[in-house]
């Protein structure tokens, strides 16, 4: 038998390896230090880098470059500045519609809020999150909220029908949260900063970040509220109503026409159930948030069956609150923002919590005509 391999060409050449490797490490470390200094100066995701900072409007210029990383940086920033945020009893997870629950569209929005009933709520939702990434961020941060006993999970029926997941941004963001060194020695951080520099003149120099670092009281002024029957009460909406603007009707809760109930059930079992089972002492409150309006046809067939499978599956795991039919402001031409429903989103959250605590029915925040939004309520 041959004593060594016959077709290997990888025999070590006779070189000075020790010095070459030491020199190579010195080159790599010098380059990494220079990159880290540049990234700390630009700090596009507002990670709280030490030292002088470039005067950017980071929220406008960089937030959308990587929403997962921006969210992680925001959570870390708020937890550092507001130690009492760790006392939150409610955690919200989900996408931008769930993020709107704590008033993301307001200038003084924050992740940590106290609602009108005095409940402390921390928002871990972020724009573009899906079911998997929502649970990833929850798993990463749940230990930082020892008093949190309820998870408000904004679910998205379309995602439960679709099994394709993209977790790369969140994986990278969580890796950075665990070790910020990756943020500083990443070329991507520098690329984002340099791309932002090109657009600099489009943005105002700097916003006051301090507004975000305090707890916001979440009680929407009455004029912004709407009833469950959705007549508008804000001025712009009234204007359209008065002008006999077409009021579109949302007929279906989803854009997925051929959903497969078995796929929905399987996704609930494989994605959501493990998270619920891991935390038996926590209560999960699932909220089906408003969807894009679909006007062509009412829910029927496989679509309706899939939706029913979602509702049944989630009821088996916690409390299910359906706000999917809630419409945003309508105009003559389109829904202005039928999904995020902005000022109504915090009210939906508060109704959902109230219903989960008192499922027999309780006057709604949204429906101030005395109706209850709770299933089984009035």
């Amino acid at each position: 038998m041959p004593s060594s391999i016959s077709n290997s060409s990888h025999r070590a050449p006779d070189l000075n390896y020790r010095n070459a490797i030491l020199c190579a490490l010195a080159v790599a470390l010098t380059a990494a230090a220079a990159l880290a200094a540049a990234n700390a100066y630009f700090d596009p995701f507002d990670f709280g880098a030490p030292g002088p900072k470039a005067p950017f409007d980071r929220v406008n210029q960089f937030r959308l470059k990587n929403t997962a990383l921006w969210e992680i940086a925001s959570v870390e920033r708020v937890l550092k500045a507001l130690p009492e945020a760790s006392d939150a009893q409610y955690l919200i997870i989900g996408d931008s519609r769930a993020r709107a629950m704590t008033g993301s569209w307001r200038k003084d929005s924050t992740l940590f809020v106290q609602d009108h009933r005095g409940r402390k709520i921390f928002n871990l939702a972020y724009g573009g999150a899906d079911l998997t990434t929502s649970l990833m961020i929850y798993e990463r941060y749940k230990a930082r909220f020892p008093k949190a006993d309820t998870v408000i999970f904004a679910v998205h029926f379309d995602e439960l029908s679709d099994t394709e997941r993209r977790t790369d941004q969140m994986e990278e963001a969580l890796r950075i949260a665990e070790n910020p060194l990756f943020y500083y020695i990443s070329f991507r951080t520098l690329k984002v900063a340099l791309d932002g520099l090109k657009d600099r003149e489009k943005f105002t120099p700097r916003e006051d970040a301090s507004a975000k670092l305090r707890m916001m009281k979440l009680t929407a002024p009455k004029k912004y509220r709407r009833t469950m029957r959705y007549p508008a009460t804000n001025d712009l909406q009234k204007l359209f109503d008065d002008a006999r603007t077409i009021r579109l009707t949302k007929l279906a809760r989803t854009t997925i026409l051929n959903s497969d109930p078995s796929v929905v059930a399987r996704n609930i079992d494989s994605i959501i159930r493990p998270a619920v089972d891991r935390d038996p002492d926590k209560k999960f409150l699932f909220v089906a948030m408003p969807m894009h309006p679909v006007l062509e046809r009412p829910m029927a067939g496989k679509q309706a069956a899939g939706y029913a499978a979602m509702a049944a599956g989630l009821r088996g795991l916690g409390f299910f609150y359906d706000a999917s039919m809630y419409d945003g402001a309508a105009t003559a031409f389109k829904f202005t923002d039928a999904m995020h429903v902005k000022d109504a989103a915090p009210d939906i959250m508060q109704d959902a919590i109230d219903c989960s605590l008192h499922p027999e029915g309780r006057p709604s925040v949204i429906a101030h005509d005395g109706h209850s939004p709770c299933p089984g309520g009035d």
Partner: protein
Amino acid sequence: MVFNSWAFIPFFALTLAAYYLLRSWRLQKTMLLGASYVFYGFFHPPYVLILVASTLIDFKLSHWIARAEGGRRRLLLLVSLVSNLGMLAYFKYAEFALENFNAALAQLGVTAQFPVWDIVLPVGISYYTFQTLSYTIDVYRRKLPPSDSLLDFAFFVAFFPQLVAGPIVRALDFLPQTQEPQRARFSSRQFGWGLHLLVFGLFGKIVLADRALAPLVDYAYSRANEIDFWTAWIGTIAFSGQIFFDFAGYSISAIGVALCYGFELPDNFRFPYAATGFSDFWRRWHISLSQWLRDYLYISLGGNRKGEVRTYINLALTMILGGLWHGAAWTFVFWGALHGAYLVAERLLQPVIDAAGKASGLAGRIAGMAITYILVCYAWVFFRARDFSDGVKFVEAMSAPAPMPAHLREGSALAMAIMGATLAAQWMMRDTTIEAVWAKYPFLLRALILGGAIFLIFSTRGEQRAFIYFQF
């Protein structure tokens, strides 16, 4: 665990330290065997049991085969083939077979359907199955005596650098190394070059395959319904680079890691895009698989010993089965069939090719390389496409020239520059080795290249993408 994960750094450091601190060769091998099971267990712990079972079955069978004669010998080989290929068939092809069976039933108007099993493919099963198969076949062919040591045999099957994505190591090459305790003596030359190879491989995987090329490939191949000439070509050329740097990157890292422990693994790539024909391509691409297929499938089918027509059939059949080895999908079968057709056509046209090559010299060889590369790219389309119809859309688009969209010019510049440089470098290095080229560089240049590669590995690292060949 994979080489491009953070977990690998402490794993590698600890096993190296333990390996060189231990003083007994037997203990050193035992430690590496245990570490290899831990490495494998990171993917899906229960599947370590399959690896162990496969090892025990083939160890025992090889001894029985060696002692048996005649029909009993053949029967025992058959048992080995059935157990190895049966395992592969269950884990890798059962779902595919059931889906196709159901589709065939539906075509016949039968409404009843068999439930399709949801089977998790044990990572690396195609590689270690082929390793153990080659061992029992070699024992059967009396090329190799059965291993006396279960430890050595288990170590050969499970040695972690090559366990999950090759190179496919032959017992004939590896088992003798387990009898050479001098390999465990620390050699700065071997260790240093092993680290160099690990860095080169990770640079190829993380910087070139994942960061520079993969986004363009994903972009192109997610748009099959609206694909145009340039997007199809650029996406496919980028994929030819992605799969090369991904797989060759893994192989070279594996060879480097093994070398750090003093073990030699076979070469798996030799500048394949510099090939001037398809038989040349398969001598340079995934060498350990093509040699395996040649020695254990093509030759077993009769090779070129049974006449011209039978040679072509054997060639095509070997390549089709080689395609199926890559994955349970018709796209892989078609990819293999396409390469089989290329090889058959090349063999048929060999006199013409030889005459043209002699007449045109260097220009003819460059033309040969270009034609081979372009046809290999056409085949890659089916390897990468989500399904067969997407592949057809790509091929149609690649054959219908159209103006280049403006956004693509800017977005693909870096990737196309990398591919241009890769093809040029492979051409220039086609008859040499990395080692020979590296040894010619001055010290400072070597330090700058190596330092730059280490820096780029860490600073461009994004999400951890699995190696493409893990799925096979």
